[in-house]
């Protein structure tokens, strides 16, 4: 992984905010394709964007910090439940609900970060699972608050900015989610290249060396978990707002495992990898799982094994290598 850092840092940006603009434009372009070509599947695409936040969040802790976690859905679920409960209790403004989700996700992220990043290896993995399952058990048992196994329903958010109503074709929900995704993605692009983000990368590559040069690892990882929690909280709140229900599946172990698969499929350690993995996985699932869920499981399992053996850095890696080669050719000429 170290070579990536080396090739990136000395690279001079010719256009200020060029990368951010490219990221924003690409997402808008992808969104436009979805919006105009598949107007009947907008509800599904909105759900996809919600999950994309969770995968981006997981990328921050797994891809950038090397934390192995199987309980990341907790942050997403807490954000979703917080936004849902706030909405049921009377807060109608979608932006305020989003803020509630972010706040709850951040708190949850800080708590789980404080527990999970204390250790490495097996204890870390088991703690992450236990935290995730604890949240799932709470969501199930506190049924007066969360609706239990029936799910939390009756979430009817008001108009976005007081103008755009949520319609039954999910047009507003889709555009609103897409807009939030663009903003969050651009912020994250800046964030992962900040000194803090680069230091987290350094911790992932060699935590002993990081400690030797005087970095205190634990507070940084907890902070990173907090940021990841905020991103996941955005996704949870958006999903709650756009679908109108929050079910137990949003905190389940399966959800946590699934997003890990999506992240690795696309490529951990790249924001684009997280997005690409989500899009590929969700679309395939949408098509295959509808036909036969067990064929889908076989296929995912096989795919995962193949990825780990042949492309451990994800599908995004060859694409990035191609870009790098083109760039080198361009500068040589």
């Amino acid at each position, binding site marked *: 992984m170290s070579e990536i850092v080396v090739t990136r840092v000395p690279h001079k940006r010719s256009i200020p905010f060029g990368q951010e603009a490219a990221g924003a434009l690409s997402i808008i372009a992808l969104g436009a394709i979805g919006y105009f070509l598949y107007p009947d599947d907008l509800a599904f695409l909105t759900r996809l964007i919600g999950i994309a936040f969770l995968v981006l969040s997981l990328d921050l802790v797994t891809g950038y910090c090397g934390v192995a976690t199987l309980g990341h859905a907790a942050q997403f679920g807490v954000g979703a439940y917080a936004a849902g409960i706030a909405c049921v209790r009377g807060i109608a403004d979608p932006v305020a609900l989003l803020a509630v989700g972010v706040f709850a996700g951040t708190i949850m992220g800080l708590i789980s970060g404080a527990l999970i990043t204390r250790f490495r290896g*097996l*204890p870390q993995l088991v*703690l992450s699972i236990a935290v995730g399952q604890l949240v799932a058990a709470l969501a199930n*048992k506190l049924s007066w608050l969360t609706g239990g196994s029936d799910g939390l329903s009756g979430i009817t958010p008001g108009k976005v900015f007081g103008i755009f109503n949520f319609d039954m074709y999910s047009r507003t929900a889709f555009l609103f989610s897409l807009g939030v995704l663009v903003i969050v993605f651009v912020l994250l692009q800046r964030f992962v290249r900040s000194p803090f983000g680069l230091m987290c990368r350094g911790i992932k590559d060699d935590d002993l060396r990081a400690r030797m040069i005087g970095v205190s690892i634990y507070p940084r990882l907890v902070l990173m978990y907090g940021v990841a929690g905020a991103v996941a909280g955005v996704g949870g709140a958006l999903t709650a707002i756009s679908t109108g229900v929050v079910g137990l599946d949003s905190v389940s172990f399966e959800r946590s495992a699934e997003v890990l*698969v999506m992240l690795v499929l696309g490529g951990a350690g790249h924001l684009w990898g997280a997005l690409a993995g989500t899009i590929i996985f969700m679309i395939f699932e949408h098509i295959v799982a509808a036909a036969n869920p067990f064929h889908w*499981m076989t296929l*995912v*399992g096989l795919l*995962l*094994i193949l990825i780990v053996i042949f492309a451990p850095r994800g599908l995004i890696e060859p694409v990035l290598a191609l870009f790098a080669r083109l760039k080198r050719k361009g500068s040589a000429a």
Partner: protein
Amino acid sequence: MRTIFSIMTDAVAYGMVLFIISIGLSIMMGLMRVVNLAHGAFAMIGGYLASYAIRDLHVHYSVAILMAVIGTIIVSIPFEILLYRRIYRKSDPLIQVLMTIGITFFIIGIVNFIFGPSLKSIPLPQTLSGPLDIGFRMLPTHRIFVIACGVVTALALWLLIEKTEFGIKLRASVDHSGMADALGIRTEIIYAVTFALAIGLGAFGGVVGAEILPIEPFYALRYMVTFLVVVSVGGAGSILGALSASLLLGLADTTGKYLAPEFGDFFFYLSVIFIVFLFPHGLFGRSHA
């Protein structure tokens, strides 16, 4: 008194099932340092094979257990050669998690494609299905049988690891695999045999414990976490650790279900977080540098 006694029987039987299945995983994690999330999937294969053998081939229960164990080991051989060998002692747990989750999904999909997605019962023979009179109380024979299986497994493993030449080589490989290799111990053979042993124990536990942990399509996913927690709480590679953790968690879970069914899972995972946070290498485990 009656309640306490039946809770205890159920708890110990449940704990023993957990022990038989998890001890294989524990040995594997102690020796090969593989976080094998697919262990439950192999237990599931054992259960499906036993169910098929009894219901369709009409063989006796004991023969079915034997067929299930051997069949599962045979099924697992290609996985060992093609996949597991790559991740033995590799330090990155993320790769191991991903590959073994992939194997789990793959096995769930294939098994349900072959045997059909329904709950599989493993009918008990006459001698095991009724209650047993132990003098002052009647107990379900099957529970006693499971507990006996657990005790025998623990004793046999202890003998194997502490008293035989294979056990000596195994312990040498656990402590320092490079040095063991240099001294002429064929560690790859030790690994392969241990893998087969672990999978066989998993399948055995899956069949014997089918009354308590029913064999169903998502068995491998449902109990994946439980087995991993047992190993983590007990400490990887420790028989005593796995036994005490299984009984402890079995007791906590069963008592919770009897006394406070509302919050069973909650207290279970809360105690797991406490134990793992205080003893990151398990109650009886050692840290591996």
